[in-house]
């Protein structure tokens, strides 16, 4: 049975490289997904105020769209979309009173009680597809590529929706190992990239991104892999600003995890839209003759 795919807004514009590489990879792996024909922005950030139910409407509406299609699982790629949808789902499952209020507010939609399963491609590959099966599909192992797995916040926090142990995760490492890459663990892999400080306090975002990148490099990484367009904005695109502000800031190629997957599956580079990455990203892959 095919499953619903929720892309998220950014994957249709600035982070097209995350979507196209993922769709190509899933097709190659035989994972059948159908993009929802109607979907809205999930809200990107899960509201932490206990009584702020209006900001829960958007993700719940998307989950209702999945239910309407008769699908029991929705797959996400962007870690912020994953987090927002998964937490809204938890709320609808566990909080009877809020569930009732939300369902009554959305009187034009069918009722929802958390019937859909929200997954990220990572846990889908681990729990549904299986690491062993994935390993068999690898055609171009990324031998000798030293990659730092950058989790960021939203794949691992809070624990109710965490893909793995928040204190010592290993899912990203396992994924990279299967692709044939050499994993460079680094302490700041689960530290926040600065997220929306990029707008209100860009210097703070630059500082924290610099710390994360230098930490990864210091622990042997020659490139970073991540799952989130906002992390990519801070850790990838921000490197240009970083170089102006901080002397000796490193140049670190940054990839979406799905781009490395697509390359390791032997898919054409066009599927990855590397023109949206840093130039050093595509150069490193060419240098190593992966593409």
């Amino acid at each position, binding site marked *: 049975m095919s499953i619903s795919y929720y892309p998220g807004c*950014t994957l249709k514009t600035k982070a097209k490289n995350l979507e196209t590489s993922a769709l190509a990879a899933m097709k190659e792996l035989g994972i059948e997904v159908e993009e929802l024909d109607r979907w809205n*922005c999930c809200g990107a950030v899960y509201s932490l105020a206990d009584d702020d139910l*209006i900001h829960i409407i958007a993700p719940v*509406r998307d989950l209702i769209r999945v239910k309407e299609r008769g699908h029991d699982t929705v797959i996400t790629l962007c870690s912020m979309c994953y987090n927002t949808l998964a937490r809204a789902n938890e709320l609808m499952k566990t909080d009877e009173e809020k569930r009732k209020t939300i369902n009554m507010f959305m009187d*034009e939609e069918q009722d929802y009680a958390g019937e859909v399963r929200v997954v990220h491609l990572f846990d889908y590959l681990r729990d549904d597809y299986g690491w062993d099966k994935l390993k068999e599909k690898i055609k171009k192992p990324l031998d000798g590529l030293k990659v730092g797995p950058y989790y960021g916040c939203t794949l691992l926090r809070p624990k109710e929706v965490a893909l793995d142990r928040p204190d010592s995760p290993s899912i990203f490492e396992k994924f990279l190992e299967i692709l044939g890459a050499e994993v460079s663990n680094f302490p700041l892999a689960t530290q926040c990239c600065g997220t929306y400080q990029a707008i209100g306090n860009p210097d703070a975002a630059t500082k924290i991104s610099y710390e994360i990148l230098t930490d990864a490099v210091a622990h042997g990484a020659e490139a970073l892999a991540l799952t989130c367009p906002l992390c990519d904005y801070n850790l990838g695109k921000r490197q240009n600003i970083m170089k102006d502000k901080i002397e000796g800031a490193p140049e670190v190629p940054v990839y979406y995890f799905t781009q490395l997957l697509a390359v390791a599956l032997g898919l054409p580079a066009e599927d990855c839209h590397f023109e949206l990455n840093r130039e050093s990203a595509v150069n490193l892959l060419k240098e190593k003759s992966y593409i």
Partner: protein
Amino acid sequence: MSAETKEVTTAVEAKLIPIYVMGKKYEVPDSLTIMKAIEYAGYKYIRGCGCRGGVCGACSTVYRKPGDYKIYTGLACQTVVEPEMYLTQLPFYPAIRATYNFHELEGKPEEIFELYPELFRCVACNACSKVCPMDVEVMDYVSALKRGDIVEAAKISFDCIQCGLCASRCYGEMPQYHIAQLARRLAGAYLTPRAEHLKTMCANIDGGRFKEGLDSLKAMDVDMLKSTYQERELEPATAGEDWAPKDSTYL
């Protein structure tokens, strides 16, 4: 009662029903539209009334029914009165329209984001779609725009008559219908495929392809013009796609 004894009346008496216009009760015939009922009650439209045909968007009406929490809307010229309805006209709702020089735009999503940053205040509450008298899925086109799909937004918003009711209900306080208008303009000017054969035709016209024919028509007297028109070759109603006139001078 037999047919012989039944009284036949020709005059039809309208059944009167009570409606409340801006809180004041009026008895109006039950078959009237809201617009006609308001006129029947003695009001005269100076504004808030345009085409009377359901397309201009000038006569938005908001109403409620007794014992029902829902807000109802409709175009006054299209919606028939209901007993005990409370209504008011909402012919205009303030909504800021961004200023832009259209020829400097290229049809990029970021251009809409910059002109209407309030787009991102949408929380998907769907109040806009619920209130739309044209059943446009307003929230869906706002969602399409947030992900940069201008063409999709133009398609979804095609039936919009710019009445402004969506803006009146927006939690994010955005002027949806102005944003949709920009989307349709950009889609039409920059994002939909061009009709390439039109260029050839324009070049033909500029090159004098039809000059001789037009000149000969201009030189005709009225009778000649009439007979030429009446004797023209008509395409049969059943003609297939491969049909062509006998005289193909100007094709």
